[in-house]
């Protein structure tokens, strides 16, 4: 199996090369047999990449240490699940994983798009093949997971303890699925630009793939935040590290696209802009890969760095050149068919939403690349950290939150003042009530106050939309309200799914604003001693150390400290925090000791305990943090994913037409009349 896998990798490379050359040749000369041959080669490539991946998985699971990759990423006593996930734990394997996902996506995209996009497909196939070819070349000649050692070590180096976490099974695959899905819209864009078929049809398929990318990207980022939070022990979940920023960029661009595409569908505007966004998302994904793989920017993540990064730089530059050339020569075909009529219209609010999202994306990119830029221009590296990103993005983010409430309520084309009054009275009142409450409760953090006020405003707009829709169905079809709600969402998935995503966003903002009230204490406790502290809500806490215990587990020595926690005199539980020393199968320590954070979670806050070390026999040095509203981040993420799923869920053609999402101009009153047809 392993040998077959290794062979398959090379065959896949040949297939990709053929699909690219035959595909482009066939598409430009319009020779059917070449086009068909390229398509078949692409399917075959997918099959061979799957076999190549299966081969590497076999090698990992059977601990075949004759392969350098297996020996450096796993060890005999590693639990099987981590042997499996070690596939994407190192450079070579993760590239193969990229190629695996890319070829599966590619096969699916070509298969599902063969009927609806007949004219584009001949170009989509070779474009996707070319991307796959690049990855396979990088794998075969840059970082081959099948490269062998000239001897067989007794045991492997093992997997970094920080990667031995369920996050490892979930975070990278989701992020990769999100990243790589941007390749399909990119290929469609290339195809549409070459053939000049830049009407709205191709965007329907593209939108679906952007949604796929957006959904996995969202889930991947949120899981990454959770993983960092429970594993790294610095008490937060987002540090504006270059690698994190790299995953955030495609998300921002995809989000912008998902909004601006509606403007093109309804009004025939923003064509250039949308093509640019589609292409930029892919470029951002490649740029992100370059940043993480090359080490040009210092990051704490610093995984799998090597010269392979420069392959990506080359590929990135090539892709930029191709797209600039294509868009530049097709500007005339991208002319808008309508003009902006009023500033108080949904188009205008979407335009501002896009400007803000792209502005945020640009500032994140700028801050991330600033060390390189300043070194190139001024000769010294200047870095910017979280303060920079927060100063820039908190105001922009809050503006965006405001638009989240405004956008869905304003009518297309031109909103009347009666429309505005009807739509905004309730939400504005909700916002003012929230503001008054916060001030009365004595909250003084400006950003947090604004965030919660706007959050209340946005939630009210969404509630109002749901209520209106339900009431209308209730009246017209005499459905009971729960049934009406169900039908409302099911018949208008895109609209109401989108609202649910917005609810998730509000919850996330609420959680982020909670960070302003975080409190930390450095504590040193002997067994039996206690420490008293007050949490941000004003509750009295007492932590009693139960002493230090030392014992051995599966593949590690553990030093654990138990803290009994009391809130306002009532015992609420025990928090355990550990230092772990991982060992290999001969009991020799591998890696540095690692920390397991003790977390007691609740809706209001997490109590987060990190063991810094043990002095003498049983004095534990710890840092205790009250982290308000952290769970809301995970809930917000889940709500967003749910909303995304609802939007994505395939809808039969007839129903979609009923729901009014055809690319036609609709009367200006769309937003004011609940969609009940």
């Amino acid at each position, binding site marked *: 199996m392993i040998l077959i896998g290794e062979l398959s990798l090379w065959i896949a490379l040949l297939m990709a090369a053929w699909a690219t050359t035959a595909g482009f040749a066939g598409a430009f000369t319009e020779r059917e047999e070449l086009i068909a041959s390229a398509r078949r080669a692409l399917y075959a490539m997918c099959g061979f990449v799957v076999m190549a991946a299966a081969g590497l998985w076999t090698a990992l699971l059977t601990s075949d240490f004759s392969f350098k990759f297996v020996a*450096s990423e796993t060890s005999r006593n590693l639990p099987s699940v981590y042997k499996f996930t070690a596939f994407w734990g190192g450079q070579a394997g993760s590239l193969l994983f990229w190629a695996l996902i890319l070829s599966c996506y590619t096969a699916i995209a070509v298969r599902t798009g063969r009927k609806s996009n007949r004219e584009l497909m001949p170009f989509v196939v070779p474009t996707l093949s070319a991307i796959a070819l690049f990855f396979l070349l990088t794998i075969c000649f840059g970082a081959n997971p099948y490269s062998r050692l000239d*001897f067989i070590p007794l045991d492997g180096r093992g997997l970094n303890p920080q990667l031995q976490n369920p996050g490892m099974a979930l975070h990278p695959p989701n992020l990769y699925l999100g990243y790589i899905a941007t390749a399909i819209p990119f290929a469609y864009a290339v195809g549409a630009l070459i053939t000049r078929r830049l009407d709205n049809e191709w965007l329907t398929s593209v939108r679906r793939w952007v949604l796929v990318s957006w959904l996995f990207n969202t889930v991947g980022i949120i899981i990454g935040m959770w993983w960092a939070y429970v594993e790294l022990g610095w008490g937060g979940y987002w540090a504006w590290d270059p690698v994190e920023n790299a995953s955030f960029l495609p998300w921002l661009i995809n989000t912008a696209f998902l909004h601006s595409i509606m403007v093109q569908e309804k009004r025939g505007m923003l064509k250039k802009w949308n093509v640019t966004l589609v292409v930029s998302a892919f470029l951002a994904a490649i740029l992100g890969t370059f940043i993480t793989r090359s080490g040009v920017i*210092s990051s704490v993540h610093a995984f799998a760095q090597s010269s392979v990064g420069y392959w990506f730089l080359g590929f990135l530059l090539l892709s930029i050149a191709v797209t600039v050339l294509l868009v530049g020569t097709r500007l005339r075909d991208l002319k808008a068919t309508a003009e902006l009529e*009023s*500033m108080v219209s949904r188009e205008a609010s979407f335009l501002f939403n896009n400007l803000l999202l792209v502005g945020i994306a640009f500032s994140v990119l700028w801050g991330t690349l*600033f060390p390189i830029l300043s070194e190139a221009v001024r000769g*010294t*590296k200047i870095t910017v950290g979280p303060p920079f990103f927060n*100063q820039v993005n908190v105001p922009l983010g809050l503006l965006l939150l405001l638009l989240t409430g405004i956008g869905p309520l304003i009518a297309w084309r031109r909103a009347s003042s009666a429309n505005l009054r009807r739509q905004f009275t309730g939400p504005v009142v909700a916002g003012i009530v929230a503001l008054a409450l916060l001030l009365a409760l004595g909250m003084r953090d400006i950003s947090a106050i604004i965030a919660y006020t706007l959050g209340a405003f946005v939630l009210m707009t969404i509630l109002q939309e749901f209520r209106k829709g339900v009431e209308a169905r209730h009246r017209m079809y005499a459905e009971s309200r729960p049934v009406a709600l169900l039908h409302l969402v099911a018949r208008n998935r895109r609209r109401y799914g989108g609202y649910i995503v917005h609810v998730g966003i509000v919850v996330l903002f609420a959680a982020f604003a909670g960070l302003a009230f975080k409190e930390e204490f450095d504590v040193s406790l002997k067994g039996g001693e206690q420490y008293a502290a007050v949490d941000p809500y004003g509750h009295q806490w007492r932590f009693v150390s139960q002493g230090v215990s030392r014992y051995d587990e599966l593949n590690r020595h553990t030093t654990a400290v138990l803290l009994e926690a009391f809130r306002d005199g009532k015992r609420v539980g025990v928090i355990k925090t550990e230092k772990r020393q991982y060992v290999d199968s001969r009991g020799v320590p591998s890696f*540095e000791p690692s920390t397991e954070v003790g977390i007691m979670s609740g809706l209001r806050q997490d109590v987060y305990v990190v063991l810094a070390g043990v002095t003498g026999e049983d004095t534990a040095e710890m840092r205790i943090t009250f982290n308000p509203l952290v769970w809301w981040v995970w809930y917000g993420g889940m709500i967003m994913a749910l909303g995304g799923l609802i939007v994505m869920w395939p809808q039969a053609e007839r129903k979609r037409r009923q729901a009014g999402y055809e690319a036609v101009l609709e009367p200006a009153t769309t937003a004011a009349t609940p969609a009940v047809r």
Partner: protein
Amino acid sequence: MKARTKFLIGGALVLGTSGFLMASSIRTTGVYYLTPTELATKVSVDPSFYETGVKVGARVVPGSIVRDPGGTFMKFTVTDGARTYPVSYHGIAPDTFTDGVDVVLEGRLDRNGTFRATTVLAKCASRYEDAPQKYQQTPGYRANGAAAQRT
């Protein structure tokens, strides 16, 4: 005024604001990222670099780490091969912080020549493709499956 013009003005306002935010934030929050040698040069040219917040990227000199019992106060030495600085740090060091590892320090150089770090970020060297050679100098590693390291 046409809506398009109004929008262009609005858009310019949004972009202008974000541009201004970016420029001003870089001025107020940007810090120099230096190697020990560069830091020494800066300080000798302009003494105001003492007690100024900077970032320093360097390697921990193996064997130089002295931890106070309990592990929340430590002293160590960092080097870039040419220039060496003693460092003091109060706080919790990351798990990956150990002999011979590359670190990024945030903090300030005091007038006695000690770097007082407020944050210590350690790169997780084990995931570097070029790690084996570097890692052979670290005690925990020589013992561990030396065979696999020779690659």
